[in-house]
């Protein structure tokens, strides 16, 4: 039977939502407090869900150590305690959690080959969460 394994990790980062395609007034109207020029931060909870048949030898979809190592080295190292606006992926794209979800999904999809990536879900706060399952996703 196929199983879906989800692992949660946290990182803290700052960002400012501001689009160069809009006037200052439009930016303020669109992003509200998130447009504050000095930025602000969140504790982001990232959930990575992978799936596959359960390996009879290990009882697992994939090695949790491998998944944790990958997330630590490729995601947490990259984003934890950073200003998202200064990272190359947000040089042109606004660092909304939608775009962050897509960036993280792409990193996992490209680099983690031990199981099928189902989706990436991010809680920006306890009240806001975002999911991305790829362009063919549900």
């Amino acid at each position, binding site marked *: 039977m196929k199983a*879906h394994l989800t692992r949660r990790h946290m990182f803290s980062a700052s960002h400012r939502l501001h689009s160069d395609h809009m006037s200052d007034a439009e930016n303020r109207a669109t992003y509200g407090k998130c447009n504050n020029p000095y930025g602000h931060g969140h504790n982001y909870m990232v959930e990575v869900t992978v799936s596959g048949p*359960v390996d009879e030898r*290990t009882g697992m979809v994939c090695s949790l150590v491998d998944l944790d190592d990958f997330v630590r080295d490729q995601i947490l190292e990259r984003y934890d305690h950073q200003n998202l606006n200064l990272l190359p992926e947000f040089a042109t794209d606004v660092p909304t959690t939608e775009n962050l979800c897509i960036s993280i999904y792409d990193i996992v999809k490209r680099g983690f080959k031990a199981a099928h990536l189902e989706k990436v879900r991010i809680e920006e706060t306890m009240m806001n969460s975002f999911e991305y399952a790829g362009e063919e996703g549900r």
Partner: protein
Amino acid sequence: MVYLTRKAEFSASHYYHNPALTPEENARLFGKCNNPNGHGHNYTLEVTVKGAVDPKSGFVVDLKQLKEVMNREVLDALDHRFLNKEVPEFITQIPTTENIAIAIWRRLSPKLNFAQLHRVRVYETPDLFVDVYGEA
């Protein structure tokens, strides 16, 4: 179609070991989880059933019945047990969260003739959980 989820908790101990592998391979694969004396978790189980709302009762499922089946088939068997030693499935299979979720699906699915099982989710900790949706 409406989905209904019922939660339950159980506490159990386990360890990870594959007798077909060498002690070194077991230690490398399973790390701290390989300690044969076992360790434990407070597991959270979420059982989701789906169906149309019965116009007479307004229910997808009789929650009382669902709770009874969960208690009898799952919690009575797993709660406060050493999974490797006391639960038949895990005499031969490693009691990973994946295998626990599958075992719970297989225990519940034949007994839930009054509801359509959609998903079994098992949290080993708040930061690690497994979902199974049956063979489909």
